[in-house]
């Protein structure tokens, strides 16, 4: 365990009121803190996970952070200015590193009695279902779905010269490098990252049975951004329906330029900012009743990259991810959960013949959670990862996680 993680674990124990703190449970809030007559509300999540060494980087969210060894503090705030305007924000710190603004936007409700909202700023993801879940309490396991966390070798700021150069990075998304654009090794991107939110404007309309959202943002699904890097926006949309209680059906789509201007210019010259896009479609379903919740989500994504040197990348790169997840409560405060997850990629033709452009990966994770208090949850999970490529083709990893929220 690194010194940073030891420090994180110690702080987690203190924050959670464990061990030597007398009457810790009494001094910690159990509900959101309301100020200014309820106009300002502050809530928080503290998550501390300790797990196996992930030498295959299956759970890394960038080059340095693994979801299985993570101390995270989230503070969320809403400031209700009046019945039309609300400011919302979330700051987050991971492993006592840099404090980051995860979300910061204004929510405008033009007509109070109609379910129409406009959100502008660093807004919640429009696409898919998982990224908007409250991670600490609404993720029954410790690991993330692959589509939202697993790092492919693709980078928005660097491009492979040929199919062979891309194929050399199979299973190395945690630290890939290409010869066009930024040549420094960096981590690649997830299909639809759950770790950063995009910046732009979002329109949401809701009725009893159907919700619809459309958004225009600076980044893309794989690469949400604060500032634009290619002078063209992404458009994303989602429609979800609740035909009967407990059933939610959703479809999502998004399209936007993925490659940065600098990388595109380095590859094919000026004027091609908008050519190299990421397009994605998604479908999700959730059904819950009694003591169980079942969820499934599938995301198909396609990236268009420039065809440069031989053997050229002559087809768009595609990825298809599907997971099925379930949770069942055994008795008050105790549940078991599991997720089966696969992320696959289409073939491209290199010098050695056709091969998937990144290494397909499968994860099976099972776990359990026990609530010591209503807002203090302990999770344990074990996952088996298998990958058709990379230095470490398979790994069985375990993790425990403590979650405190108010």
């Amino acid at each position, binding site marked *: 365990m690194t010194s940073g993680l030891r420090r994180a674990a110690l702080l987690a124990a203190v924050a959670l009121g464990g061990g030597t703190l007398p009457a810790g449970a009494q001094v910690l809030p159990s*509900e*959101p803190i*309301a100020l200014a007559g*309820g106009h300002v*509300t*502050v*809530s928080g999540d503290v998550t501390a996970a300790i797990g196996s060494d992930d030498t295959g980087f299956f759970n890394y969210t960038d080059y340095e952070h693994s979801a299985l060894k993570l101390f995270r503090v989230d503070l*969320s*705030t*809403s400031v209700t200015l009046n019945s039309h305007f*609300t400011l*919302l*924000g*979330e700051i987050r710190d991971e492993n006592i590193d840099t404090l980051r603004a995860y*979300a910061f936007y204004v*929510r405008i*409700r033009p007509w109070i009695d109609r*379910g*129409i*909202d406009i*959100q502008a700023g660093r807004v*919640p993801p*429009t696409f898919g279902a998982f990224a*908007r*879940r*409250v991670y600490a309490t609404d993720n029954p396991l410790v690991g993330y779905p692959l589509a939202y966390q697993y790092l492919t070798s693709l980078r928005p700021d660097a491009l492979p010269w040929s199919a062979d150069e891309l194929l050399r990075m199979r299973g190395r998304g945690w630290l890939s490098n290409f010869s066009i654009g930024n040549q420094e090794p960096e981590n690649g991107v997830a299909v639809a990252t759950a770790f950063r939110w995009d910046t732009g404007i*979002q329109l*949401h*309309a*809701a009725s*009893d049975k159907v*919700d619809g*959202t459309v958004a225009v943002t600076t980044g893309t699904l794989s690469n949400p951004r604060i500032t634009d890097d290619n002078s063209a926006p992404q458009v994303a949309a*989602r429609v979800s329906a609740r035909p009967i*209680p*407990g059933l939610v059906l959703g479809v999502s789509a998004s399209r936007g330029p993925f490659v940065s201007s600098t990388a595109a210019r380095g590859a094919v010259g000026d004027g091609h900012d908008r050519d190299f896009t990421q397009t994605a479609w998604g479908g999700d379903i959730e059904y*819950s*009743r*009694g*003591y169980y*919740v079942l969820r499934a989500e599938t995301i198909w994504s396609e990236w268009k990259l420039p065809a440069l040197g031989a053997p050229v990348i002559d087809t768009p790169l595609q990825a298809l991810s599907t997971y099925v997840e379930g949770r069942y*409560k055994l*008795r*008050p*405060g105790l549940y078991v959960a599991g997720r089966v997850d696969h992320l696959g990629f289409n073939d491209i033709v290199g010098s050695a013949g056709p091969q998937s452009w990144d290494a397909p990966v499968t994860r099976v994770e099972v776990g359990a959670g026990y*609530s010591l*208090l*209503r807002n203090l949850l302990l999770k344990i999970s074990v996952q088996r990862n298998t990958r058709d490529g990379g230095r470490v083709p398979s790994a069985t990893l375990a993790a425990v996680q403590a979650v405190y*929220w108010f």
Partner: protein
Amino acid sequence: MSSALIAQSPSAIRGLRAARNGAIRGRVDLRKVPTPSEPRPNVADLGAAVRALDISDRLRSVVYLESAPRGAFETVEPTHAVMDQRGERFVPHILAITTGTTVDFPNSDHIYHNVFSLSKTKRFDLGRYAAGHSVPVRFDRPGIVRVFCDIHSHMNAFILVFSHPFFSLTDNDGRFRIDNIPPGVYNVIAWNEGVQSDPRAVTIPDGGIAEEDFVLR
């Protein structure tokens, strides 16, 4: 706190031989009215949820005898009570019952709720169920049960379970009255949202009414 709800027969109880029972009445004044729990900031939501705050049921307190007359337990008859889930709130917010009472938890909303409690007095989880359905829970032990919804974190309520019938839920003005108390001296406690007064010795006169006011918070 939960032990305070268990009826005792202390030596302080006097006058049980009196023929006519008395009563205690008064008012609980709240210096600060507890506000309903705010929902957690819905930062990840694509839109706002419409929810009206109603503090009327936060004005109600519970007044009870810390120590009940001897024989009080024999008079307790199990009954039914209802705690509704309506407009993402538990209604009523505070329920005072005797041991053996079965509480029904109907869902009157068009969305799922999931009632649960991790209280030592009664640990239960009713799972998710839709509008029109109701699940009963029987409370056999005295104590305080905090009730929550697993889906809507701002929904919470209290159930105070007594092993004797000498308690009263105040009205919205804080007025209470406990009848049929055998004459004697009793410790009386006022409670509101987890805050309680110090036990106060009150003499119940033979066939009369004792007056006692409380200030909380």
